[in-house]
């Protein structure tokens, strides 16, 4: 809201020692934040732009801000008063009002001004409106806007002669619209009305959308000679709903939906009518019509003095009762009684935000100043510091591992476009959760994989000239709706805050690897990463999280996926299965592979991209902390290399499993490494050669050459029998 400093000073005594900026600072520290203070040279004025929180409709006017300043600065507030000169016949001769929508309209008042001359407003009034961002229209409309800015009461002027009459009297009826009715509002738009809408109607047609905007047909024009001036109090929720329904937000609806003062209606009406008469040469008819069947009374609120101390932590000296009462009085809050420790305050109806004891305690603290509240940290002695080795430590270990492997952490939006995500969606996966009011189609689907976002990052970086792009992200995916009903069910929250979620949300750790990888230097060339590079990164990660014990691990298995994910190359993809200790059930940790060439092409990438996606929940359950160390070996180790000729379709995994499972050798193997794989002209077609290096050692003695030779021989025979492997 824009506030004129000059105008403000008509309603409050501003200490001469304070500059406009200092006054603005006082408002800011009082909770009415002045965002800008700009100088208007033409008006020799300063304009404040004040951010008013939605709980303070009373501050949406110059009078409201002035009252606030008086309380903050403890100076005088000059309450405005209205005088009115009436002449001519009573209003009842020319107008009648009835309220049918009684819940929506609690008060409706109007006056009639005859003999008006509609023209341009005087220069100073127009300048003031322009400075406060209101477009001047004519002397009648401008005055209604001026009173709105002065007092916060929206007003509307109708051309009396355009209203449909009943027995020579213009009819005003506050009612719900009927099906099929329309109204062309002042902005020229024809609006279809529904019975939910509350309108001001004349004897026949709607003439205004109540509390929001008037109608075009009844607006004040240069032809107007008589004006019917409306001031009313509408139910905030009703106005809010119909403003939303019609996509309209006006100065009037903005105030009505936050709550105006029902008891200000008449004084604002009189003040406006009087000003209109003065500026247009018109006469205000005798009497006002004022339908106000159930007057809204000020609330009386009990405030326990002990409670003020308990909430605020303020010191006794700052809680002086007389001081608080005096400050409250400047805000119009009177002390009307006392019961025991409690004081009884009467809260004026322009403060709809003050309905409870706590609201008045906040008000007291605001006026005393939050800087007066002492600082205390006594509570910390009662609880120990939280456990740092808490549940999320594995997340940090995962991050550190990937970073050490050359990966940068990315953070992407949780929503994207359908076309991006469809490439990643298997037939049986759940339907996308769709944002009903997205910022655009490209931000409308809740993600089911982190990979589309990461691939987009690869594209961006490739375009910027990056030779290698290696990224990972940790974030949630959204896999459809949870099964247990649509409505919240708080009884599901047993000890865990994340239960009772509407959607199935899973945390994922995903990564992509594209292009150049490894050390780059003056004498070594970087090579493009491939599947085994990324697999190695994952293996290192699993070692860091103590899920795997390295290349000897029999807990982790990379299995060629039988039904590969649609976004992965069918030949270059694997599922990662983990067999936890003391468990017979293998857990699927995630997938790794080359992005399908079709997807790669769809993203416009010129080189293969390798990717993985893991379940963070599974990582969390599988990660182990602080394992006991193994004793260092006391006896020497012996290495034996072995080159084997195998059928091409025998996998390294099969060979490894066979060797590690060998009865004779098993107790001695402390390490197994594959150091060469060969296919080519030097060996038979349909065959390949795999060379392994075995490290052997006994825990209790030095192995002899004979012992090893025997065991190796037995193993080779087994390999020959089970895998048709031959020693080369």
């Amino acid at each position, binding site marked *: 809201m824009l506030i004129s400093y000059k105008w403000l000073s008509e309603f409050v005594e501003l200490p001469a020692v304070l500059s406009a900026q200092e006054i603005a600072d006082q408002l*800011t520290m*009082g909770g009415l934040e002045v965002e800008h203070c700009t100088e208007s040279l033409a008006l020799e004025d300063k304009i404040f732009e004040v951010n008013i929180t*939605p709980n303070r409709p009373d501050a949406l006017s110059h009078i409201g801000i002035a009252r606030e300043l008086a309380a903050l600065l403890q100076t005088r507030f000059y309450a405005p008063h209205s005088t009115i000169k009436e002449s001519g016949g009573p209003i009842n001769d020319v107008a009648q009002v009835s309220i049918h929508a009684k819940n929506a309209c609690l008060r409706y008042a109007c006056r009639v001004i005859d003999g008006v001359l509609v023209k341009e407003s005087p220069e100073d009034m127009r300048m003031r409106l322009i400075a406060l961002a209101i477009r001047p229209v004519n002397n009648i409309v401008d005055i209604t806007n001026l009173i709105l800015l002065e007092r916060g009461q929206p007003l509307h002027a109708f051309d009396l002669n355009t209203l449909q009459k009943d027995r020579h009297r213009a009819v005003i009826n506050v009612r719900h619209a009927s099906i099929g009715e329309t109204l062309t509002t002042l902005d020229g738009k024809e609006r279809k009305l529904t019975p939910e809408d509350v309108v001001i109607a004349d004897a026949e047609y709607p003439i205004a959308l109540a509390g929001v905007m008037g109608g075009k047909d009844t607006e004040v024009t240069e032809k107007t000679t008589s004006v019917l001036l409306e001031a009313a109090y509408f139910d*905030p*929720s009703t106005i809010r709903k119909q403003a939303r329904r019609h996509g309209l937000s006006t100065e009037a609806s903005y105030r009505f*939906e*936050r709550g105006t003062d029902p008891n200000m209606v008449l004084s604002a009406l009189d003040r406006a009518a009087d000003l209109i008469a003065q500026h247009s040469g018109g006469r205000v008819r005798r009497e006002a019509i004022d339908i106000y069947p159930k007057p809204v009374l000020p609330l009386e609120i009990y405030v326990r003095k002990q409670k003020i101390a*308990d*909430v*605020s*932590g*303020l010191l006794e000296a700052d809680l002086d009762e007389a001081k608080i009462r005096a400050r409250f009085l400047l805000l119009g809050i009177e002390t009307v009684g006392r019961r025991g420790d409690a004081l009884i305050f009467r809260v004026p109806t322009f403060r709809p935000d003050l309905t409870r004891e*706590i609201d008045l*305690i*906040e008000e007291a603290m*605001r006026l005393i100043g*939050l*800087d007066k*509240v002492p*600082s*205390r*940290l*006594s*509570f910390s002695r009662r*609880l120990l510091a*939280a456990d*740092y080795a*808490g549940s*999320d430590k594995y997340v940090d270990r995962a991050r550190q591992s990937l970073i*050490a*492997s050359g990966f*940068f952490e990315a*953070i*992407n*939006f*949780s*929503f994207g476009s359908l076309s991006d995500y469809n490439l990643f969606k298997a037939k049986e996966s759940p339907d996308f*959760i769709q*944002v*009903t*009011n997205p910022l655009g189609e490209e*931000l409308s689907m*809740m993600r089911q994989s982190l990979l589309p976002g990461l691939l987009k*990052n690869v594209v*961006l970086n490739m375009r910027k000239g990056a030779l*290698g792009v290696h990224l*990972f992200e940790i974030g*949630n995916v959204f896999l459809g709706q949870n099964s247990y009903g*649509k409505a919240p069910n708080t009884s599901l929250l*047993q000890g865990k*805050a*994340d239960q*009772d*979620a*509407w959607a199935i*949300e899973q945390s994922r750790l995903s990564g992509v690897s594209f292009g150049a990888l490894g*050390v780059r*230097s*003056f004498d*070594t060339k970087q090579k493009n990463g491939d599947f085994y590079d990324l697999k190695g990164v994952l293996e290192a990660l699993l070692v860091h999280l103590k899920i795997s014990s390295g290349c000897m691990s029999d807990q982790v298995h990379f299995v060629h996926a039988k039904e590969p994910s649609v976004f992965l190359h069918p030949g270059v993809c694997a599922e990662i299965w983990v067999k936890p200790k003391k468990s017979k059930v293998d857990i699927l940790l995630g997938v790794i592979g080359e992005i399908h060439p079709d997807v790669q092409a769809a993203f416009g990438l010129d080189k293969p991209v390798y990717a993985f996606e893991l379940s963070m929940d599974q990582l969390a359950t599988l990660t182990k902390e602080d394992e006991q160390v193994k004793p260092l070996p006391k006896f020497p180790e012996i290495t034996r290399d072995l080159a084997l000729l195998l059928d091409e379709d025998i996998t390294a995994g099969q060979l490894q499993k066979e060797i590690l499972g060998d009865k004779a050798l098993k107790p001695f193997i402390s390490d197994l490494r594959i150091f060469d794989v060969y296919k080519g002209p030097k060996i038979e077609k349909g065959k390949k050669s795999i060379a392994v290096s075995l490290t052997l050692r006994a825990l209790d003695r030095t192995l002899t050459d004979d012992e090893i030779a025997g065991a190796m021989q037995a193993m080779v025979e087994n390999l020959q029998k089970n895998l048709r492997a031959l020693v080369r």
Partner: protein
Amino acid sequence: MHDDDLVKPSRVKKDLEKLRLEAESLLKVAASRDEVEAVRVQSLGKKGSISQILKLMGQFPAEERKELGKLANEARDFVEDLIAKSFARLEKKARQKILSGQIDVTLPGRMPESGSKHPLTLTSEKILNVLRNLGFDLVQGPEIEHDFYNFEALNVPSDHPAREMQDTFYVDKDVVLRTQTSPVQIRTMLSLKEIPIRVATMGRVYRRDQDATHSPIFHQIEGLFVDKLVTFADLKGTLITFVEKVFSKKARIRMRPSYFPFTEPSAEVDMSCFQCDGAGCRLCKGTGYIEILGAGMVDPEVFKSAGFDPEKVSGFAFGIGVERVAMLKYGISDIRHFYDNDLRFLSQF
């Protein structure tokens, strides 16, 4: 050495001469200390040539023995001298080799390529570590949220004007992308049911807003403390400690009354500008202060929604925007940098 028992003195002389020549030629080409040492053992050692020759001396008459002895000693001295010189020569060569082995130390090293954490991760880790040390346990809640947890239970009924403070994304009727992390407060209170509660939560929140300083997705961290007789003074003490630990020991805070539907009283918390220390600069737009947090005492209505009696417990809550802190800390002017994942940006952290 010889087949026949009778060895002539002339033969011994010849042998000594041969020994000298052999040692001389071997030492001349010896390329290592080991080779020199081998010559010494062969010529002068206990089982070496000289010892063998001297063993034969017994059979000669005294005069010849004397002469031959002299010759043998000369030969030994000669070889010993040569060996010493050879060692010296090798030593000198080794020194020279070390001195000549200079490389271009200015060539770049073979640096292992490593990545980095996202600046938002670094920032939230810093904040969460401080909260942990203040005793706040970490809790989590879903990002797609029932209207009930996101608004209703937080004292924002459906037609409340406060809903306009946050433009909301919907995915279904009464189902929203959470606009704040505050629903986790409700969830925590409902799930724990016992005091004291001291928790922090961190996560993504969503608002329908997009420009250089607003992202439709951003991250919030929130703290909640509920116990008996918690006052605004405790909130202040916590925030002062928090700001000192996250930013700097010199940082001061300033609290301005404000409005959040779920706290009463509510305050905006400003921190003294860490660039100018309150004097006023471009970062703080000349005010000396930077808006950093929202905070307040938990509203009685919120306690009621969460199953607590507001007459028996009290508490405070505060929230901070991770992006905002990161932008201030690292001098980032456009929030979109966080989500582009441009390596030229990420690699600076």
